[in-house]
């Protein structure tokens, strides 16, 4: 009896969380989807979002994974200061991040001038979109990856060292495989944040438009019925990666349990 009550309770919460998705499906019509997605250039925002999302994930994995490992292993002096820094960027509203990025990488800043010298710009370019997505998703990845590394028992790394592995090899053979399910989850959360990034994006990367910005501009220009199909596209395109990460993590856990 209590098991059924638990399932029913969980079901209610699950449906409540799914409320917006259910509303999306109930307000979509086949003809609206067809007309919105068959318009010339309609799928360009989709390509832009996927490309920028993948580049963002690459940047996060390469640059933020070592930071997360050092935070998890206490390799940094004054670790609370470092963690507070990560939390600060998490707590800032994305719109504010975008406004502040203008001061940081805008065309009249030192970084902006260096970029201009390299014939690049961090305003209204693909680079600007990636920068905005990185800033919006990085804290989620760093905190998730830190937790993933912290879950790896340091004594296993020590044992691998005593068995003859240098630290880099220990990382590759022990730390990374054991943290991988957690890292995959952190990456999938970062992916979701990057795909849905809007606040910072609208300030510094109005062009080229990704899907969230396309939803916003379509809503402004032609109304909700034309905008909703892009939300469906966002869902369909963004969902497989986190879903795959969930399935892979569960399989890795099952394999370890034998």
């Amino acid at each position, binding site marked *: 009896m209590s098991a059924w009550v638990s399932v029913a309770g969980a079901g209610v919460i699950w449906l409540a969380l799914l409320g917006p998705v259910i509303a999306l499906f109930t307000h979509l019509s086949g003809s609206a989807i067809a007309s919105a997605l068959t318009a010339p250039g309609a799928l360009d925002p989709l390509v832009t979002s996927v490309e920028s999302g993948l580049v963002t994930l690459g940047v996060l994995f390469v640059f933020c994974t070592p930071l997360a490992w050092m935070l998890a292993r206490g390799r940094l002096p004054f670790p609370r200061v470092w963690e507070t820094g990560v939390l600060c960027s998490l707590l800032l509203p994305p719109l504010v991040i975008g406004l502040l990025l203008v001061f940081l990488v805008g065309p009249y800043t030192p970084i902006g001038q260096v970029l201009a010298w390299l014939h690049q710009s961090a305003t209204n370019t693909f680079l600007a979109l990636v920068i905005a997505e990185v800033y919006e998703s990085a804290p989620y990845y760093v905190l998730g990856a830190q937790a993933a590394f912290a879950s790896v028992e340091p*004594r296993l790394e*020590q*044992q*691998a060292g005593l068995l*003859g*592995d240098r630290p880099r090899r220990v990382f590759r053979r*022990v730390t990374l495989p054991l943290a991988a399910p957690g890292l995959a989850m952190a990456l999938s959360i970062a992916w979701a944040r990057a795909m849905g990034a809007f606040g910072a994006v609208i300030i510094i990367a109005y062009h080229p438009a990704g899907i969230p910005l396309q939803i916003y501009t379509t809503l402004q220009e032609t109304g909700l019925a034309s905008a909703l199909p892009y939300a469906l596209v966002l869902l369909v395109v963004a969902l497989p990666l986190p879903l795959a990460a969930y399935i892979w993590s569960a399989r890795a856990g099952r394999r*370890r349990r034998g």
Partner: protein
Amino acid sequence: MLDADVEVDRREFTVRAALQVGPGERLALFGPSGAGKTTLLEAIAGLVQPRRARIELGRRVLTSTAPPVCDVPPWQRRVGLLRQNPGLFPHLSVRDNLSYARSASRSEAELSSLAAVLGIDGLLSAMPARLSGGQAHRVALGRLLLARCDTLLLDEPYTGLDASLRRSLTDLVSSLVTERSVPAVLVTHELADAQAFSDRLAVIDRGEILQIGSPDEVVLRPASRRVAELIGYLGFVPGGGQVAGIHPERVVAGALPDQGLVLTGVVEAFHPAGAGWEADLRVGEATITCRLLDKPPAPGAEFTVTALDPPYFEPDRNAPAVGGVTGPERVHQ
């Protein structure tokens, strides 16, 4: 030969210890929890930074804080460390765990024969999560043996295992250490484990080795009252200007003056203990504990026992209240 002379600072005290363990020799390092046993092993393995040390293994200098300064990193030491937690890699099968070490033999025949000796030959494709505690320890031991370490350091590896498994693992390690002729050090706070394993027994307390010798010598002739207390002497009875140490398991009922110290006291309490009985006997102002084969008389009755060939120590002014008999008229020798 493992030759270690180490000083490591800890929060409460400094561990100062020197050990020499020959090829194929088994040394047990026995002491209470927090005595510095694990710190000493970790210094040998290169996992903690010593204040002063010289550690040699075979002809290699692993650590030297004196010029020429040397600190071989853990991955080049070829020191095998087996802890209470076997530390198997959970994402690798038993076979992959066994052959993990870079120096591990790639010979399938050697892996199979060692697995058979360890009794894990049917588990090679299993994941560590499916193993029992004893099986996991056997795999961890096999991993060290296949890694061809130059010394084996065993840090309370049998804690939590049942008695028969401890005995079989101890026998197995002993025979393999002899066969491979590597020095081995077992750290334990269980005297029976230390005795079963070792050729020599070292007693360590607060970072200092108090006595080192054959297990019999250390147990029957502890060098000091502190060593006696650590290895299980529970009563200290004055006599002839000295203090006799009374071990509960070296007491027999009745007066046998030619075999030791005869003590007459009053039974305070008793209860069954294993196949016999354990009784508390009040002798003067001291209480001694005796393990007896036969049931002692009821509490309050007078009872005579003989402490077999007890060790004697100088009286310790700071000793706890278990000693300090002031009624020597009840003590006969």
